[in-house]
């Protein structure tokens, strides 16, 4: 596809998309918020600030912070995830 053909193909595709979707009329910015329903799969999250704290005084002198004696295994919701038909993990630890 040469440059000219590509340009026309892209422009035609864009015009066609405008014509065949609900975007045809110019929309004010505040209306655009709802438009994500028209495209992709909208995922609903909890819209609060995830990272905020980190200034806690949670430490004690007895906490074990040594990472060299690693023996923990993933034990959260990953056990309900299904990978290639197997529950939990892709391969044994």
């Amino acid at each position, binding site marked *: 596809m040469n440059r000219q053909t590509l340009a026309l193909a*892209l422009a035609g595709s864009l015009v066609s*998309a405008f014509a065949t979707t609900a975007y045809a009329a110019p929309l004010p910015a505040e209306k655009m918020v709802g438009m*994500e329903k028209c495209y992709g799969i909208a995922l609903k999250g909890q819209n609060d600030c995830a990272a905020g704290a980190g200034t806690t005084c949670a430490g004690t002198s007895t906490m074990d912070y040594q990472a060299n004696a690693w023996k923990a295994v993933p034990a959260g919701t990953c056990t309900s995830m299904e990978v290639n038909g197997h529950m939990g993990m892709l391969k044994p630890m």
Partner: protein
Amino acid sequence: MDQSAFAAALLDPSLPLPAGVTCARGEPDATRFSVYRNNVVASLSRALGERFPVVRRLVGDEFFNGMARAFLTVSLPRSPLIFAYGDTFPDFVAGFAPAAALPYLADTARLEANWTRAYHAADATPLPVERLLAIAPERLAGIRLLLHPAVALARSDFAIGTIWQAHQAEVVGSVIVAASESVLVTRPTFDVRVHVVPPADGVFADSVLRGETLGEAAATAFARHPDFDFGHALLGLASLGAFADSPLQGDPA
């Protein structure tokens, strides 16, 4: 007091108590330093846990805290803004051997990092979609659209959007993760939006976000997905708020 020795001893309990850490009577005070050392570790671990709540739930608190401690010994905050801590955590997770059995974990962390970055990104007015129609057809292929400050894409061989969504609920059910997903994060106004976009559009968006022209990005997407619909993809990305409003300049070819 030697600050570098103090800083080194904070993260390595095998190092001796830094000189000058004493109680009121002037004797070395190992217990107090230990409390301080643990506060550093505990607070940074907690900050990571709050930035990566889905990863934390996936692996459980014990595993997450251990992983966080391993991370912070190699990557301390580089910014006084605690919400920026953990930008490199997804890469660390990808190389963290004890988590190798969870191949979707690092990409899930990338999505969560994108979410927080979008939340704190600068405000910008999204490009009104009808402006796209005003671009002269012959210039369309050469254009690089200005990206919105909040936009980010995470592409994965696994269903990270579905995983993320499942963890917004209190109870997480079974999720089939062996499905590739491209997840776009935007914040057109105040709320962060998370979307799973079609695979071909994910290829296109990835190219556009890496600074390619619309023509280059379209060619990349066509090559991988012959049924790629350029107009629908561009219109979709713009409507989600991927681009910022700006004068539209053609590439000076």
